[in-house]
């Protein structure tokens, strides 16, 4: 259960130890490069960067395959749309649908862009614990005038990490409820509507109870939205400066290419 979609894999690599802010900014810059990449040379270069990063943090490649897998259907649709609906030189046709050379090219690049976006995002979530991501976001948000909206950057970060935290919890209760209902003779295929109700109703009421309990636990441990500190060191070190230099180099390289 530890390799849920986009989950964190504890480790001690350079990428793991980078400041979360570096990684978040880096991800934004890389996304920009990816969206800007159009030639296969660009794509190849991005793939190379990704491979080097994965190798350097010694993560199993399977983890990333699993991150992409849930989206395969979406990618297939995306690819086929481009393939069939792009005007250009016809390569092959099937009744009124025709596949064009341009469509093939565009379909491949667009799909690859999304795959890479997802892979890089998975790389960050795999090497950064969710709470570090949220505390990184918290620090990046801090200069924003959030208090005029009546909320602090700590509240934002806490909300984010709680919602990340509730996903697996939700998933667990869903699985156990489904098993409980099936073992009481519920046939999901025969009575889908009844099945949905018999799972969703207790799921919602159970989750509300859970949320209340977590709120109590937070309150009794003195949660406050101002004046919190963090156990995670947030300091740009040599590694971060080197990474920033590399980002700049990467962007220059890609724009020149």
């Amino acid at each position, binding site marked *: 259960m*530890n390799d849920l979609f986009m989950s964190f894999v504890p480790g001690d690599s350079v990428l793991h130890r980078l400041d979360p802010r570096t990684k978040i900014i880096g991800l934004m810059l890389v996304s920009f490069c990816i969206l800007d990449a159009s030639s296969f040379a660009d794509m190849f270069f991005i793939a190379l960067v990704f491979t080097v990063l994965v190798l350097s943090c010694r993560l199993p490649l399977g983890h990333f395959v699993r991150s992409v897998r849930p989206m395969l259907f979406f990618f297939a649709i995306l690819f086929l749309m481009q393939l069939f609906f792009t005007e250009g030189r016809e390569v092959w046709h099937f009744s009124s649908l025709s596949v064009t050379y341009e469509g093939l090219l565009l379909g491949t690049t667009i799909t690859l862009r999304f795959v890479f976006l997802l892979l890089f995002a998975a790389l960050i979530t795999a090497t950064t614990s*969710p709470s570090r991501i949220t505390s990184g976001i918290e620090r990046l948000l801090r200069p924003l005038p959030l208090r005029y909206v009546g909320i602090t950057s700590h509240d934002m970060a806490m909300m984010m990490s709680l919602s990340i935290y509730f996903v697996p919890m939700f998933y667990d209760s869903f699985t156990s409820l489904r098993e409980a209902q099936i073992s009481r003779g519920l046939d999901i295929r025969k009575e889908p509507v009844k099945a949905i109700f018999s799972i969703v109703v207790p799921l919602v009421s159970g989750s509300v109870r859970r949320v209340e309990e*977590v709120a109590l636990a937070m309150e*009794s441990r003195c*949660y406050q939205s101002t004046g*919190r500190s963090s*156990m995670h*060191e947030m300091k740009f070190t040599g590694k971060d400066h080197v990474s920033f230099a590399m980002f700049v180099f990467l962007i220059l390289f890609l724009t020149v290419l």
Partner: protein
Amino acid sequence: MIHIKDISYRYPDNTLAIDSLSLNINKGEFVAIAGKNGCGKSTLLRHMNGLLLPCQGSVVVNGMDTSDPSSLMDIRRTAGMVFQDPGSQFIGMTVEEDVAFGPENLGLSQREINERVDLSLQNVGMEGYRYHTPRSLSGGQKQKVALASVLAMKPDIILFDEVTSMLDPCSRKDILSLIENLHENGTTVVYVTHHLEELVHADRLVVMENGRIVHDGHPREILSRNDPEQFGSDLPPVIELARRLADSGLIPADPSSFPLSRAELREVLCRSK
């Protein structure tokens, strides 16, 4: 330490959960609270660190009144609480982060936070699980982490709400011996339970019924007589046996020597031979 003076509490749906109840808990005491389901144990406990405020009466913890909003933080730091369900009191994504949550709220420095996390995890013997996710822990391990998270706030008082009720007998013993250790080192313990065999360590037993206190005294005094119906649980076999032996005159009927555990019963039997 905790002075509860004539409090009543009504839930928003109008259930009267606490009915003009008074209780004083002294420094260093190990007070157990027992009673049937729904008699108001959890509600009472939640008053002791200001999670609930009494509709009437007052609760004073270490000289601070819970109705004063400015001292709530200090009260909660003084009186930590461990809850019943091991699954739903985790706040961090890893053990380390969960334990750090309290100290972070106190605004401590990073070094201090890390020291406290190390120390509290060592105290409960979970230092090897620092980077584990809560989902990968057993119920007993989760409760140990929950205890470590409270210890990281360095509380003087710890409130336990049926913390062993979802655990197997083995983890239950583990947790109990941790609590007993804390008590020996001077922590005031308030311990809500349905398991009367866990009362061996308690200095004092408070039995509740319908939001009131019906018995308050040493567990031996209370368990050696009285209808077990009130305790919210069957008598443990040892106590049942000890009662019958006392009734038939095989052991002294004196409540101050009434045995609460197998070891104690053996001793009493040897002595009375």
